[in-house]
């Protein structure tokens, strides 16, 4: 690519489409960069702890480069739109939590209805597209504090991800990371063969 892709585009390309959840994640990633004075991770200088596995996490991966594969994306399955972004170099971390709304606004409610409906009519396709535009502008234009609560927190940094040796499963013959293999009478076997 001959030009650096803006963060918004990076996230959309990674996620595959534009949706409200992704846009919220983009706001989180961009805020964390600004607040911590960091850019994109190269080699685990940044760490993200995410308490959800919804769309917003893809923005964290694409923009901050805290990724599942690199091991600096830690997933806690709490079902909460809460993200903690930490910088080893700055020894700082910020915890960002989406504000709770007991009732979504009318546009979001309608968008969700249409998003879950199969076989939309032409009018509904048009309406859904227009609603997404309205929601998009609202999410990207609102003051950050209207959308999220945040605070800098003390953070206990874990060790960087370790590369473990691979051993062969005694049943399927495939390689398996040593700590994941289970010792049996047949030898070491992978979790898939248990």
């Amino acid at each position: 690519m001959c030009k650096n892709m803006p963060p918004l585009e990076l996230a959309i390309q990674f996620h595959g489409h534009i949706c409200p959840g992704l846009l919220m994640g983009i706001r989180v990633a961009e805020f964390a960069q600004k607040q911590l004075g960091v850019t994109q991770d190269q080699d685990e200088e940044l760490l993200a702890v995410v308490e959800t596995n919804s769309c917003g996490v893809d923005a964290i991966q694409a923009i901050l480069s805290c990724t599942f594969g690199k091991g600096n994306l830690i997933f806690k399955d709490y079902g909460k739109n809460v993200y903690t972004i930490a910088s080893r170099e700055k020894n700082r971390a910020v915890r960002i939590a989406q504000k709770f709304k007991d009732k979504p606004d009318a546009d979001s409610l309608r968008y969700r209805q249409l998003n879950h409906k199969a076989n939309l009519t032409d009018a509904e396709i048009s309406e859904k597209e227009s609603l997404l535009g309205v929601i998009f502008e609202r999410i990207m234009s609102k003051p950050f504090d209207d959308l999220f609560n945040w605070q800098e927190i003390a953070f206990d940094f874990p060790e960087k991800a370790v590369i473990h040796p691979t051993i062969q499963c005694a049943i399927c013959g495939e390689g398996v990371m040593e700590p994941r293999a289970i010792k049996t009478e047949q030898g070491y076997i992978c979790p898939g063969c248990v």
Partner: protein
Amino acid sequence: MCEANVYVNRGGQDELLMESVDRVVPGEDNNIFMENIFGERRVIKARIKEMELVHHRIILEEIPEATMNPHLELWLEPTTDHGHFHPGEEVRLKLHKGYNMRPDVKAEYMNLQAYVVTDGVPQKVELHDHHGAMEIVLDQEVEGLVQVYVHEQGNQDLYATAVVEVGHHHHHGVKPAGLPLEIFPSDYGHARLGENYEIKVLKEGQALGGAEIKATYSSTQNKDYPHRLTTDAEGRARLFLTARGNYLFSVTNDKIITTFTLIKSF
């Protein structure tokens, strides 16, 4: 009458569209806006078929898109997927005729003329027929911001305009090409998703206030233009960009239809 339920008549059956509606506003282009007491809102292309006030029922009839009979317009699209060309690269622009960035394959062209504008001076360039599609191929020497426009003379004068970036980091301004009706970026810069983009409409070089500009983008699934903007007294209108790819702006005035292709980097 207090609130009413709104139904749409499909295939002879009345299907419930929205309950407890307290506001129905017929708008332009056959749009009907409705809002209910729960704050839900909808827009549908339809006409009111019947209002049964005693029974609190409003029945709508959808208007098929095909009956809207849109006019044909010209527009230009670059043959690059990342918004600009590189110096020495072949700069190729495709000309389309259709509506809402959907080419009409049956459309015919007549009296086409294409120009490149350098420092306000138009220079004629050739249009080539490339496997049935019209194309402009610019010299490989061009660099910077290049203005291109195509004119088709007929019952309606059609203009298609675009500003093409060859090379990087060209943030200086470009001047209007001096067309009878022109859409022009207020301050040329890289258009970015998630930001506002401002354009200006000029008629014979003067700002045209109160003009309706239609705006669309290449990925729209709408059959009609998804955005309608109105210019202010200085001919300006702004659009928040929410779609990837190129945008097209279109304005009609006094039998002239002019489009401007906003070529986005991604």
